[in-house]
């Protein structure tokens, strides 16, 4: 049953940070991606790894003009599963390689400097 839950103050969740909220069977990770807030389930849709323990950064996309054929993109919004390194965009919940593979996302809102997730 969805409930709006207090996470932390906005000061405690600066850009680049993640807060893990103990809700549901696996928990929910709330991310500050360059100022906008997003939340995903702490459970990889592949084999059930704790997704939110994974490294958050950018990813690579093809760049035919670059000598190594690629360039960095989407900094700060891609979480890598700590097991098989599947990449998920926390802002959409979609797998980067195959967007049809998804993880559950949740609404995050800020009120009076306090962060809430509805999960």
């Amino acid at each position: 049953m969805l409930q709006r839950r207090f996470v932390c103050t906005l000061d405690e969740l600066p850009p680049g940070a993640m807060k893990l909220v103990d809700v549901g069977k696996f928990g929910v990770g709330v991310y500050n991606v360059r100022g906008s807030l997003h939340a995903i389930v702490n459970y990889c849709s592949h084999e059930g790894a704790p997704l939110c323990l994974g490294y958050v950064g950018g990813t690579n996309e093809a760049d035919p003009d670059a000598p190594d054929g690629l360039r960095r993109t989407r900094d700060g919004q891609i979480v890598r599963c700590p097991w098989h390194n599947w990449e998920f965009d926390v802002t959409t919940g979609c797998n980067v390689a195959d967007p049809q593979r998804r993880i559950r996302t949740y609404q995050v809102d800020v009120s009076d400097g306090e962060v809430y997730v509805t999960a």
Partner: protein
Amino acid sequence: MIVDTNVQPHFRSNAEIRDYLPQAHRLRAIPDVEQQWYQAPGGDYRRDLYGEHYPGSDPETVARHLFDDLRVQYAILNPLARGNIADYLLNSRICAAVNDWLLDRWLEPDNTGRFRGTIRVNPEDPRGAVAEIERLAGHPKLVQVGVPMQSREPYGKPVFEPIWEAAAAHGLPVAVHINGGNGVDYAPTFAGHAHTYPGYAAFMPLNYFVHLATLIVEGVFGRHPGLKFVFADGGYDILTPLMWRLDTFWLSMRDQTPWVDRYPSEYLPAHVRFCSSAFDGPTDAGQTQRWMEFSGKADLLMYGSSYPHWSTSTPDVAASGLDAEQRDKVLWHNASELYGLAAKGLAEKETAS
């Protein structure tokens, strides 16, 4: 209709190739035929074909065996070049000599119009290979480019890309076929040399998968939408488990090679074909029809006899266990589409693809 996509025509004698070498190379030593480390005990070719002529060396005999006896409509001739030669420039001249011989002896005199041929090139000499493709691609009876399975590097590596680009520009598939004609012949298995002929024969064709995986992961198929590879020694049963691995771990590895923008198996229909072989297929005939659906193999396989090899397989054996639609695809439809072969003398509705 039946198309035989894998026939090896042979020279009448070792010396015959010298007629086709340029003057500048007339004093060079050319390896003899049957130069390979693993010859089949008892001979590489069907016993009944050792007679008046060297096996597969007489066009009339070959035509009778294929077109009359087996009712084959078209045969794709893919000759072997001469094995293991260090001089890559001479190797390219040997390939050119083989190509000129093929035209002169098999394709030009062929009144039936049923033989098609291969432009053999040497991947160790990319400039020479491109030049050879440019020289001969216009000939209507040359329907593919041919390279050996053996290589120092897998065919997805950048050094080879100009060759594939030239082939694709002319709409020619590239056929990969075991032949020590590339200047290199490393140990045939991942664990070293085989100590038995069956140990060699069972494994060697499976090396195609490394070429295939690199063509996908290096982005060659991605950059050349019209490029097609034909793996002419079979080995397609292992395609399913290994492509499953390649697909599964694409999700883990995509960021190192982001130009691979789809599941690797999605490249198969547009880019990959196989010739059938006597050693492939379920040993339980009851599984054959269902097995063909894995990895979409019904659209990838083309009948190839390997004539005059000792393992020559007939169309009936190759199609054994298949349902009617699969049979049509394997025996002629897939090849007809790939090589642009129209049915001869058949009503139009029967040739509609």
